[in-house]
């Protein structure tokens, strides 16, 4: 059973085995407005939890995307390079950004569940 977790920086991460798929939430995509560019991480890059994974640009702002868990980038969603608008259309599914090979599965304990994230959004 895959399970999905969320960060305070509005990333989601879906865990399947030791593979973590990362993207930004619908809330984040809405806040950014029309996305114009996604700077994907390099395959093979290693990141620590909550460090910068890659970056995203919209008509309003450029923002960093942080790694919800530590790991090594094993694949990226290349479709975003030519069609960044997918992020606005389907932030939490089709617009996944990278898959990480997770280094430490216990790190998900520092993340939020959907319910906790929704609660967190209400407080913003």
């Amino acid at each position, binding site marked *: 059973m895959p399970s999905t977790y969320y960060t305070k920086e509005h990333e989601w991460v879906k865990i399947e085995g030791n593979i973590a798929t990362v993207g930004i939430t619908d809330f984040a995509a809405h806040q950014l407005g*029309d996305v*114009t*560019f996604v700077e994907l991480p390099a395959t093979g890059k290693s990141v620590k939890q909550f460090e910068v994974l890659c970056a995203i640009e919209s*008509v*309003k*702002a*450029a923002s960093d995307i942080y790694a919800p868990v530590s790991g090594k980038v094993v694949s990226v969603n290349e479709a975003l390079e030519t069609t960044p608008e997918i992020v606005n259309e389907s932030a939490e599914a089709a617009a996944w950004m990278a898959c990480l090979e997770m280094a430490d599965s216990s790190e998900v304990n520092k993340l939020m569940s959907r319910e906790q994230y929704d609660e967190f959004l209400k407080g913003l």
Partner: protein
Amino acid sequence: MQLIYEKSVPARRAVRMPSSDVPAAAMLPRELLRSEPADLPELSELDVVRHFTQLSRRNIGVDTTFYPLGSCTMKYNAKSLEDGARISAPFHPMIALLPGGESCAQGSLAMLHHMGELLAEITGMDEVTCQPLAGAHGEMTGIMLIAAYHRAKGNKKKYVIVPDSSHGTNPASAAMVGYEIVTIPTAPYGDMDLDAFRAALNDEVAAVMMTCPNTLGLFNPHIKEICDLAHSVDAMVYYDGANLNAILGQVRPGDVGFDVVHVNLHKTFGTPHGAGGPGSGPVGVKKALVPFLPMPRVIKRNDASFGVETGNPQSIGRTANFFGNFGVMAKAYAYILMLGREGLIDASEKAVLNANYVMARLKDLYEVPYDQTCMHECVFSAARQMQHDVHAIDIAKFLIDKGYHPPTVYFPLIVKEAIMIEPTETESKETLDEFIAVMREAAETAETDPAALKLAPLTTPVSRLDETKAAREQNVCFT
């Protein structure tokens, strides 16, 4: 309006040159010659003059309209300052770099030296280099100086701390010099969260970069404490001078504890900006950093003559050719001398008064997320207008229709739907009142007819641009 290439008519010429009687083609190596003629527009001189005059009439500037672009200090550039540049132009100090050239450039070297002294006096620093060519260039120079200082002392430093309200160039400059960036969030009172700062501060922190007043237009009451804390781990404190216009003659960054300062001459000292530039970003430092300043350095000798020091093994080297943008310095020098001490103090006070006046007259209609007495700029949020689906961008476009350059929108990033207004000291109460009336009209229209705001601007040569398409499909070639 047609592009100049569209106006082109084959064989039409502005100037008919006599045919060359020099066999130039024979003298140039074949690989340097064009294989086909350059694709240049062909027009008469009058066509060209009309084209560019028409373009200039579509341009917006401080000379044509109120330009309250926050964080950019778009103050009026007095025409007399142009004279300063014109008079000094034939006396460029680069001649001092020729063997024996110093004696021919005493006047301009004296000006550069005095400019450094004036900026050092204004910022409370020990010495100033005028080389950097812009604010961000000054930032990078400043961080390079800090890095050189730490290297010389054998300090192992890894991080530069910036608040999340900082100008994007701050983290960018520090990253360019090789540091990792630590971002500190803003506390509810509108400044860097002190507890988070304390938690992030350690022996590996090379520098803390602060803008004071910050990009919310607020003066940080804890600034001295922040400087003291940074110094306790031998971290240098960097002052981003973007908002210096708020504090001229009121407080000096050096007195508060800052170690490095950059000054934007094109913001604070009345010289043109960006495309109207070039800019200039002198950097001031405290004594500990003086040995690392860029070369060549203008010095005053014991016999009161001026010279150029070029050899210093600890220097970070040259950051710009020929002492930086001398013409810009000449304008700013004229500005400082024209206003004098009292004038600069008065300029700051009026800049702050104007911003507070605008804030006070608009805060019943626009949300002020950090509601305090502001400095030289005030930051609103279009959050209330968002209830009618009107965004900061719509209000900005409406202002264009009313003849204004819009204020800064969507910055600082920590404010949702930010509208950042910096009137500067050079605007009269009448101008501010007219602008305030239009801002009030925009807020009213947001409630009564939000759709109308979505259509703006209607009075411009091109109406609302598809900014998303422009950013996604970056094809800027004319075909």
